[in-house]
């Protein structure tokens, strides 16, 4: 049980929880948070799994995760812009047809 494996597993867990939240919730903000959890989990898996395989610190994958984090924050920001606009227009924090189920 090395650090890499533990954090890979941690990433797996985060992915699972995030995925759960993404499906379970209808509130758009919650789903965005869930998405961020998946993202964080994925980043953990990326680094942990790669380093576990390579056996050493892997700078390439770390750099890629940096890129990923920036993309994720951009996505979150974009999502928030849309959510707020949606909220302004409809006064709702969820998509209409999701109420059905």
């Amino acid at each position, binding site marked *: 049980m090395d650090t890499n494996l533990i954090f890979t597993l941690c990433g797996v867990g985060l992915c699972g929880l995030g995925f759960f939240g993404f*499906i379970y919730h209808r509130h758009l903000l919650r789903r965005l948070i869930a998405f961020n959890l998946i993202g964080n989990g994925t980043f953990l898996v990326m680094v942990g799994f790669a380093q576990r395989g390579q056996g050493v610190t892997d700078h390439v994958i770390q750099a890629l995760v940096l890129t990923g984090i920036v993309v994720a924050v951009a996505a979150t920001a974009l999502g928030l812009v849309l959510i707020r606009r949606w909220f302004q227009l409809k006064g709702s924090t969820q998509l209409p047809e999701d109420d059905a189920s």
Partner: protein
Amino acid sequence: MISQGLLFLTPLFPMMLAILACFKTFKKNAGIFAAIAVLPAFLLSLLNLGQLEITYLSMPAVLLGSVWHTHPTGMTFLLFTSVLWFFSALYGIGYTKSDDKAQRFWILWLLTLSGNLGLLVSADIISFYGFFALMTFAGYGLVIHTGKELALRAGRIYLIMAVIGEMLILTALFLGSAATGHTSILAQDIAAAIPESNQINLLLFCLFFGFGVKAGIPLMHLWLPLAHPVAPTPASAVLSGAMIKAGLFAWISLLPLGYMHSSGWGILLIIFGFVASFGGGLVGMLQLAPKAVLAYSSISQMGLMTVTIGCLFLKPELTPLVIPVLAFFALHHALSKGALFLSVGINSQYRSIPIVLFVLGMLLPALSLVGIAGSGIQAKLLLKEGLYALYLPGIVMSITLSALATTGLMYRFLWLLRQERRESLQASPADHWMQLSWAGLLICGFLAPLLFSGNLETKSVLQQPIEYLGLLWVPVIASVFAFWFISQPLRASVPQGDLIVLIEPWFSVKEASADKKEDKNEQKVQPSLLNWVDKDQQPTPSAALEIFSRSQVAALLGVILLLANLMLWIN
């Protein structure tokens, strides 16, 4: 050369005149056209009557290779046909004087005439069939010319029967041409090849009954007593006199007479012939209209000819001998019957004709038909002679007896005319066209044995008094009964067309039901374009499913992941 030219013109001249008659300019002259239309045919028949040399006119590009010719028997037919049509046309000029639909009548007249003449000169079955059809369908127009309810009914039945007949004929022609190995469409080849056909019985059946419609054999005769009386009188004359013979002519040219012996078919034909002969007489005597009586008389007479044809199946070897006789008999019947029909029209003009001439004119064709005067004597004698030669004495006897029926019919006819004269309050004014043509036809009928017998050997009555007596006794006996019979008021009458009344309702019901059904269909055609829209606005299961999966995209992704890996594990 002249013959060929005349051959070409025989059917085409009337046709051209028919086209001319369509124009308004010739509206007045259409009747004259009708009269002169027969000229080429008449000349042709006169030129070739009795000639053994046959003129051919071959037109390979036309239809499937048309050939027209001067058939020896056909020339006799052509002769009486043209004569009868000619006089009827003259008669018609007078008859249609005040008819506003005269132009149509004459156009159809010319077309019918063209068909009638054309079929007599056709050597190939295709032109024959074509002309036959032309005659039939244009003749329909003559039948319903008056447009009255009765005429329309008669026309409908005429048409139905005619179409059935056409189809039987077509079948026969198919089979016949096939019997030649698909090589020939000439009538004579087909007649010769029929004995080799695979479907010989079917073929003969179709030929017999197909043309039998025109010839008015029993069961196929249903239209005849309806159509002949309702047509305008000149048309009745040609229908009953000339066109009815087209069936006979077709039999003569297409049946394998002389090529095969078949007692079965022979007897069948003979039975049918006698049924027609006697049955026609019986039913005819129970008619209320003079023209209907004449129509049944035609059936009866055609029965005799059918019998003769039947005999040729029994004794094929004598065909060359009997056929000319048969043709002459047809000639005699055509002219006499024509004259009788015309006299129906003349009947109301009795005031303008000297009584002697009138009585003579009325009696002569009737006596001729019975066989004791005019051409009738020759015809009957020749026929009997021919049949004697066949050694079929029973049949000769029966033919002799058939004069019973004829005599009865003639009595009935004359009696009805007399009734008519009495009942009509005023006589029609004299019409010279009608009277002249009537007279002309009478004379032609009387002189026929002299003028038109061709190379047929005819002997005058004086040379064979015994035979003449043989003709006489039956009518004399019959007269006694008939005189008694007609003086009694008729207790029961048979409706015109006898059996037709049993099956007729079927036709009319069918048409009505079709109409009704169609109306229902009409109502069903409602614009349903917008159905979809309506459906769209209802929540449908598919839409609900779509919405559900829309809100659960992520879960579906999970499901697909699961599914994919499951499949891999199974793999």
